[in-house]
């Protein structure tokens, strides 16, 4: 681009910015912009910074890989606003979670990343970071930060999940936590006044409501860390079990998986799925579970808090308007909740790292996240606490007791009830080979869920995997 054009563009932008600055204050409060075309307003300082940086970098486009999940789709819909501000187009690739994770691994591992920005989960962050696949975000921050962007907005529990060896490798975009969804009409029909608060009560409720037309419960059970382990581990901890004995300075020691608590929790999980779940539910992934709930085949599911909007939306769910929620029951060792964090990372070998970093900041700043959470696609678990008390959030997710359940679940997490080990911010062990070990552990444990072996034998085999590494 010639200098003349640059200045002309700059002048046009300045004019827009001046005009925009007059309109902005009205839009900033409450969060919602005037529609997808204009998108969220970040405040004059931030937007000017983005414009200037965009011009300075002169990068025409960046490539991005995301999961085709609501939290990414919501940002995707707002992305044209980023392009408007910075002149950087975003080539968006969205795949289902499994394929996207595969692609990310191959892309990042190949040494010349084809994606500049990568959607990743905190479970895989130690693996990616330890192999040198991700750019050091602290270093990029020191080189320049969008005004108003800061990690303090997210809370330590969340950003700690995206750090490895004290370096930040991704910016939080989503909180992955779970709660129970239930059919309010079914509970009423069977005279269940209050939702179960303990696992014993949960089992009773299952026995009561299970029928041939409508099963009582569905839970993820497919042999994979993101499926079986992500849901069941909270039960393991609530019963008093744990994967390891100690956590210190970022490393784990002492395999503790083989315990009566583990066996009991696995037994309960498998029994519920074999007796009170639809046939075949002992090898289900998240989409099977959500589909079962939205088509009215099960009365209860434990799954992502992110599905609140989807489950209650008549366009995507046949049980909209009949959905209630409750926090995960407590066991003898207390109440634990699944917890992870999704973030946007920048590939270390990206040749457009500065532009990618610009996008990452734009996508995770409060105004964008508020608009994304409450927008038409919407996701109910943004990583910033104040969004949960905003008007737009209440308007979209204020059905039944969803908002209290979500905020209560998150406070359980922030109290540290994510891992039984003191000082450990990770729900699932944050070891660098968790993708391997976790996969094999889930394969062993799933054999007990399907009834192929006893829970005791499966737990023993799983513990052997963990210690054999």
């Amino acid at each position, binding site marked *: 681009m010639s200098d003349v054009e640059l200045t002309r563009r700059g002048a046009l932008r300045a004019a827009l910015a001046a005009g925009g600055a007059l309109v902005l204050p009205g839009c900033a409060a409450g969060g919602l912009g005037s529609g997808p075309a204009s998108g969220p307003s970040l405040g004059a300082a931030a937007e000017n910074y983005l414009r200037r940086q965009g011009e300075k970098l002169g990068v025409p486009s960046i490539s991005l890989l995301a999961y085709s999940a609501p939290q990414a789709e919501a940002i995707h819909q707002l992305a044209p606003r980023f392009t408007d501000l910075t002149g950087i187009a975003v080539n968006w690739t969205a795949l289902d979670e499994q394929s996207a994770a595969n692609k990310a691994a191959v892309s990042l591992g190949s*040494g010349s990343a084809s994606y500049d920005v990568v959607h990743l989960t905190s479970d895989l962050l130690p693996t990616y970071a330890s192999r040198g696949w991700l750019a050091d975000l602290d270093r990029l921050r020191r080189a320049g930060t969008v005004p108003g962007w800061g990690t303090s907005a997210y809370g330590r529990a969340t950003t700690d999940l995206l750090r490895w060896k004290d370096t930040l490798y991704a910016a939080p975009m989503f909180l992955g936590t779970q709660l129970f969804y239930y059919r309010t009409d079914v509970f009423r029909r069977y005279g269940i006044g209050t939702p179960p608060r303990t696992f014993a009560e949960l089992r009773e409720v299952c026995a009561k409501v299970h029928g041939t037309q409508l099963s009582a419960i569905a839970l993820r059970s497919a042999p994979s860390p993101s499926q079986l382990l992500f849901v069941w581990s909270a039960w393991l901890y609530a019963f008093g079990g744990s994967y390891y004995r100690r956590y210190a300075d970022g490393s784990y020691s002492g395999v503790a998986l083989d315990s009566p608590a583990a066996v009991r929790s696995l037994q309960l999980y498998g029994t519920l799925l074999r007796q009170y779940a639809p046939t075949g539910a002992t090898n289900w992934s998240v989409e099977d579970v959500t589909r079962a709930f939205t088509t009215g085949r099960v009365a209860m599911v434990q799954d992502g808090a992110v599905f609140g909007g989807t489950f209650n939306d008549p366009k995507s769910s046949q049980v909209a308007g009949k959905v209630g929620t409750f926090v995960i029951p407590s066991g003898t060792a207390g109440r634990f909740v699944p917890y992870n964090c999704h973030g946007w990372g920048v590939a270390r070998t990206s040749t457009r790292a500065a532009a990618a970093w610009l996008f990452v900041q734009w996508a995770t700043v409060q105004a964008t996240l508020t608009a994304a959470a409450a927008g038409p696609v919407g996701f109910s678990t943004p990583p910033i606490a104040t969004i949960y008390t905003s008007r737009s959030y209440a308007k979209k997710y204020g059905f039944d007791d969803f908002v209290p359940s979500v905020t209560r679940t998150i406070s359980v997490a922030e109290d540290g009830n994510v891992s039984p080990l003191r000082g450990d911010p990770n729900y699932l062990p944050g070891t660098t080979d968790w993708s391997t070990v976790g996969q094999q552990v889930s394969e062993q444990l799933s054999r007990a869920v*399907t009834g192929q072996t006893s829970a005791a034998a499966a737990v023993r085999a799983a513990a052997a995997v963990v210690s054999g590494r």
Partner: protein
Amino acid sequence: MTVLDRHAPAPTRRMSTRRRAASAAWRRAFLTPLLVVLAATTVLPLLYMLALSLGPRQGQLTVGAPQGLHNYRDLLTSTAVWHALGLAVVFLVGALVVELVLGLTAALLLDRLLPGNPVVRTLLLWPAVLPPIAVALVFKYLLQGDVGLVSYYLAQVGVDQAWLTEPVSALAVIVAIDVWQYTPFVILLALTALTAVPDEVREAAALDGAGPVAVARRVVLPMIKPAVIAIAMLRFIDAIQVFPTIYALTRGGPGTSTQLLTYFNYQAFFGQLQFGYGAAIAVLVVAFTIVCVMLLLAWQRRAEAS
């Protein structure tokens, strides 16, 4: 069918050395693009795989300095890979046997009852042209517990089976889907092979007093044996790559009971992010494939000789 009739090669003529050299030259020229393409597109990736497999067990996708055969050592001493290999063999043998038995029987019957029917041919053809992932999705739908078509009607007659959550039935389902998709094709190929069996041979055997079953068994089948082995070979080279079915239906589960060789390899790379180890598995799979092709070819040559 004149073009496709078997034609005996012309008797070799004495050619002058110049003509022989000239004819060799153009043949070499015609073969060169093929050889270049094959070398580039098969040898290169295999060498890359070999190099990766000699590197660190986890490692990167970029090739570094070779470190030794530790990945192969780990591989050959682990039970997981033999388990995966065993499952692959069970799948291959199971699928091929069922497809051939069903296919040949149906072909023999169709040949008698409905020879040369074009409607039959079209009906038998299209399962094989569907994308395997589409077929997998359809069966995932049909095999849903309780409410899927298969589960529902079988439950009515008292057969209550959790298809995808028990190891044996999960593997059986994978086999059955392959059978479903490709048996019609096998029938088609067998039908075509049967057209090469001259009527006179059959009639002669019938006149000798042989019933239809005996004629089929002692006369017709031996005549089409080379063709049958060729069909088996064709099916083998496709079936060994079975992936979309497992990916859509079981993801290797329950436990690891449908983690066939190809899926096991995929898991090593993408699920466990162990690139060096996965590369060693890939090399092993290539070796296994080559061995199987050799065996099948040798078998076919023997059948042709007799």
